[in-house]
């Protein structure tokens, strides 16, 4: 078995506020293999972006990593000093954020930013770095890169800017790319181009990708595996086809049914009653139980641990009951 690029075990992230400690991430574990795209979905406040931020070491006070381990190719990175972490960011872990305009410095040309990033991480001369930057821009599909490299970010359209950000994220040949809502700010016709691009480039280089998004369509078309998050926990994680087509966890079932699809026409969308609890009021036991149609006594008392079921992990007592019945 190959070693996973990223391995997260029982990660806990807390935010200390005046009103007490909020658990944004509560015991999340997953692996990403080389060349694999792991999609992380969930609704606002589920903790998907915080998970990404924890992996790249960008949890700022009052937030803190309260427990668990994050390993990059077997090496622990969650307890590194800030200076060492800074060297890993950009070199070994690339980042793509939602808004391409805020990830680029408006005062420098695209070329200057690329060259600076390349030279920070790779031992290249200015000329070599520029050559490499032009190649990268060509690779991400920017027309006439020799000319465009001297343009400023505002001279690029939204889709083109996101391509520049992808070039920046990939310029030091990272082992892992964290993409946080990379296509959310873009129009649909451009979205597809960007998704295809990320997928192709990472497959070619064997880069592992953690794709954080609320858009199930993007996950369905891009990811190899998907983790469905709810209230800072993973409800279900497994191969994307299984989870989207035949979800097991009641929350995942509701989520998939709630999404209108282009194919076929459902008369009514599946409705999950209520909304996700605030971090200050996460219910005891299974966090989903007050909204769950199939909840029973145990759900409100005991928090379900992830169970292996049909090649995936599901945190739901329903499947434990099923196992118990099968055993008896």
């Amino acid at each position: 078995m190959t070693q996973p690029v990223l391995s997260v075990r029982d990660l806990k992230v807390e935010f200390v506020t005046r009103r007490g400690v909020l658990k944004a991430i509560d015991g999340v574990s997953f692996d990403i293999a080389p060349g694999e795209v792991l999609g992380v979905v969930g609704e606002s406040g589920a903790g998907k972006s915080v998970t990404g931020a924890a992996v790249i070491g960008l949890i700022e006070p009052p937030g803190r990593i309260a427990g668990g381990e994050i390993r990059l190719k077997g090496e622990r990175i969650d307890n590194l000093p800030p200076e060492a972490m800074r060297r890993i960011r950009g070199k070994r872990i690339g980042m793509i954020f939602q808004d391409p305009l805020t990830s680029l410095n408006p005062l420098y040309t695209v070329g200057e930013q690329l060259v600076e990033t390349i030279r920070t991480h790779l031992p290249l001369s200015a000329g070599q770095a520029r050559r490499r930057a032009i190649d990268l821009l060509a690779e991400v599909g920017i027309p006439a890169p020799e000319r465009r490299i001297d343009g400023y970010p505002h001279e690029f359209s939204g889709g083109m800017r996101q391509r520049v950000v992808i070039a920046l994220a990939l310029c030091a040949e990272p082992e892992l790319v964290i993409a946080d809502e990379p296509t959310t700010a873009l129009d649909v016709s451009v979205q597809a181009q960007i998704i295809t691009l990320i997928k192709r480039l990472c497959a070619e280089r064997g880069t592992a990708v953690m794709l954080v998004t609320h858009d199930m369509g993007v996950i369905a078309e891009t990811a190899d595996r998907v983790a469905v998050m709810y209230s800072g926990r993973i409800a279900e994680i497994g191969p994307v086809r299984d989870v989207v087509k035949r979800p097991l966890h009641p929350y995942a079932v509701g989520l998939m049914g709630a999404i209108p699809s282009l194919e076929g026409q459902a008369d009514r969308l599946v409705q999950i009653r209520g909304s996700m609890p605030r971090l200050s009021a996460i219910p005891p036991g299974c966090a989903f139980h007050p909204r769950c149609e199939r909840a029973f006594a145990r759900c409100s008392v005991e928090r379900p641990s992830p169970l292996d079921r049909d090649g995936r992990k599901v945190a739901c007592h329903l499947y434990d009951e099923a196992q118990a019945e099968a055993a008896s």
Partner: protein
Amino acid sequence: MSELPFVEVRRLRRVFDVSKPWLNRMLEREQKQYLTAVDDVSFTIRRGETFALVGESGSGKSTVARMVVGLLPPSAGEVVIDGVPINDPARAAEVRALRRRIQMIFQDPYASLNPRWRVERIIAEPIRAFHLSASAREVRERVGELLTLVGLHPADGAKFPHEFSGGQRQRIAIARALASQAEFIVCDEPTSALDVSVQAQILNLMRDLQDRFGLTYLFISHNLAVVRHMANRIGVMYLGRIVEIGGGRELFVKPQHPYTRMLLNAVPDIAMTGRLREAVQGEIPNPINPPSGCTFHPRCPFVFDRCRREVPPLEAGVACHAVAEGRIAAA
């Protein structure tokens, strides 16, 4: 019931002046600049129907919505609702009576509710403005009724908007729209700011209310799957024009216009049919300086000479020279 359409939009056009200030123009010797946000848009909506406009950002769909409710005067063309042209000063009295029957729901439920007003006052405002209830008690009862109708509790009326989640705020906005017994509701991206599970609740609620009160919706969205779910008929907009218009099912099963085909092909969907995607070409051009002829021609795989010169008219539901001449096989 009459066969007359309830809402009729005729050759609507809106031009915005996006020039720099006068002094800059003088110093930099620049001409005035205009942006044609909406050009020659016509459609009709029957009573009780949901008509949707889809398009990417900058296609002019929200501008159309604002002109239809009368928030923005058109540069040319007219909007006729139930036989009354809403921008005709000679019929101001009729237009005022019509106002009550038209309401709008906006995208951002955080910005469209007054944060300093209690919810009951927000919902009661249209009732008071149109003098629909005589006594304060009647108003209070009606507000409670409306809150229950949209799935909230009458006691929620005493709270302020910030005490509600995004989905609940959108419910309040819907209650406000219904307060004046509106018949026609223009919804501008009503669920775009919401999470999917909440979006499902709001879409279901909107459908239930439509069944119950026979509401007519103009539904604006960039999300094709949502539009497919909600609309009876759909108009696809590109750079200010409707490029294709048709029944929901036909449009999705047999798209005609190359842009519609491209959009449908590009949308990531959870159906996972495993179909291969054709690479989408290019991006939306700058609307200040749109391409000549058919504005889609620089991105169109079926482009030929005529497309660069002539604007294609909307014929049989499609505005495309190639389709009109039968040069593209049906999808």
